[in-house]
């Protein structure tokens, strides 16, 4: 087991200013000790130059780094199990390797970037922030999300966006069955094809302002592609409300 790094606030401050190698922490310390140690790291005020740390020891552990609320950049390498980064705020996490089910469940803000595949329920209950997965994702990606954005470079499984109340899902590849099932104010952008759309959602043209917005989001998520290549999937009622140009939704969609 790697020893728990001894925290030295002065050292952390020097590290953040001089761009020296990121400090190392280990998952072997246990989730609670690691959580506390990360929260003790002093951070910079600048969003553009976040204090960086590296967390080692990824070997498929479950429930890693949940409920972080710290403006810090974390690099990880290796596979992770289920429910990694659940209910996080502020933290900008980049991990290489596959992740299990429920990655970034209920994330509030910040970002999680996964260079690998993810299991089912990625981003379930997301309320804010960005989840980017540079691989494929299982079923029910973005289920019940209430805000934020999910970007998937590859394919997604069935029931993507099921029960999503708000937010955006961008799919670089194809989608499985029932895309957008029971979705409310959420929007899906898809480059490939869907095995089937759910009842009550439809394909809609990408408006100019959405092209611009999506283009920026693709750049931000480091996903290659032109926004024009994507199509928009929205609830029929939302589209009708847009068409009415009233800026409000018709009551009782269903």
């Amino acid at each position, binding site marked *: 087991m790697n020893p728990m790094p001894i925290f030295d606030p002065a050292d952390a401050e020097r590290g953040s200013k001089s761009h020296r190698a990121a400090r190392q922490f280990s998952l072997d310390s246990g989730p609670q000790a690691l959580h506390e140690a990360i929260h003790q790291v002093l951070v910079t005020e600048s969003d553009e130059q976040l204090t960086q740390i590296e967390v080692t020891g990824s070997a498929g552990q479950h429930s890693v780094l949940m409920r972080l609320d710290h403006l810090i950049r974390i690099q990880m390498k290796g596979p992770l199990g*289920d429910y990694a980064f659940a209910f996080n705020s502020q933290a900008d996490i980049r991990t290489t390797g596959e992740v299990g089910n429920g990655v970034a469940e209920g994330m509030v803000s910040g970002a999680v970037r996964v260079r690998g595949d993810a299991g089912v*329920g990625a981003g379930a209950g997301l309320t804010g922030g960005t989840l980017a997965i540079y691989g494929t994702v*299982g079923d029910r990606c973005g289920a019940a999300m209430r805000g934020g954005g999910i970007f998937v470079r590859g394919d997604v499984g069935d029931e993507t966006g099921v029960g999503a109340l708000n937010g955006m899902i961008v799919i670089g590849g194809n989608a499985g069955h029932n895309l957008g099932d029971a979705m409310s104010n959420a929007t899906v952008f898809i480059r490939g094809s869907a095995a089937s759309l759910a009842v009550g959602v439809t394909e809609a043209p990408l408006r100019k302002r959405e092209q611009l917005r999506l283009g920026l989001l693709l750049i931000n998520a480091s996903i290659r592609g032109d926004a024009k290549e994507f199509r928009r999937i929205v609830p029929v009622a939302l589209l009708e409300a847009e068409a009415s140009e009233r800026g409000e939704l018709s009551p009782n969609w269903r």
Partner: protein
Amino acid sequence: MNERLDEICFLPPAADTPWAGAPENDLSTMVARADGEQVAIDLPLFWYDPPWSQIGIETANVIASAVARLGVTVSALRSDLSLADREPELHQVITDEAADDSNPGAVFLPRMIPYRPERYGLNGRDFDGARVVDVRLAMRRDMAGRFAFTPDQIERWEATDDDSPLAGGGWVPVASFPPDVDGMHNLSGKFSQLRLLSQDAAVFVSISPHRLTTELPAVLASQPDGVVLRLGELNLSGLALAGFVQQARRMMDDQQCGHVPLWIVPGKITVDDAAKLMALGATAVAIDSWCEVLLDDVRDSEQNHNASFSYSSLSASNHQQWVDWIECDLASQVERFGGLLHSMRYQPPGQRLAAFSQEWAETLDLVSLNLPFDSDA
């Protein structure tokens, strides 16, 4: 309210029982988490599904904490009871007279988190200080009979501008199973995650009774810290209610889960019914029906007030009147419940109840009183 279990009575000790003092009067229990931690439950009573969205948010905040102060575990999210920038009373740290330098831990009112598959309205801070996380499986109906959340619920949890309500202000379908769990066989992983997120809470799972014989063993295999059985979803006779509780308890015992708490949501019951359910195998009983009269009064007052004063808040005196009801009327029911539980301890388990009728006695394996005349006489 009629007693549903009026065919059963409490069986006192026999006349020749020697005087041996009173048994222990402490009603609190400890729930053992699968990871070995212990969670204290003040009273074997809980308010399972308060319709918070049907009453004003400030009133909900006052009522929830007042009920919890009786020792009843109250189910609520932060978003049920307050806006984002305020801390609900139910979620605040309370002063603990028992806390000292050697035990400085923060103490909260008894609270359970409804962890629905959809997680609408759930905030990470909800996990702090909770006693129970209730992983709710199986779809539930709204008042119209749909498997859906009402617009009021969605509006309470996910407040938006009045001119852009979520789902267009309509109902939102409910889920049955957490979307990030890959089947019942992986439910134990979800429970482990929740134990980490809520380190002072026991993780329970709640199910409907419709497929008890298959679903109860399946959830028990996932090692929850407790089970909540929502018997109120069936319109059961008193005998069926009692039978279900006994059957569930026996199934748990047979699966080497005798130590796992069985919390019952029975629908409408009296205080005496609740105590009898405890004798039949329940570990705690929901008091939702005891609070209905209070909520009816709150709804009426709020409607009348809104009609007269255009949706301004009710005054503190209105709130005090409901707190008074909780501290007098509800507290007296809780007191009687506690008294009945204490009296039952004079008898060993299995000898605490008797049935008036042969049918009930045989079905529930109870002593039959064999009265020489009709008990209603």
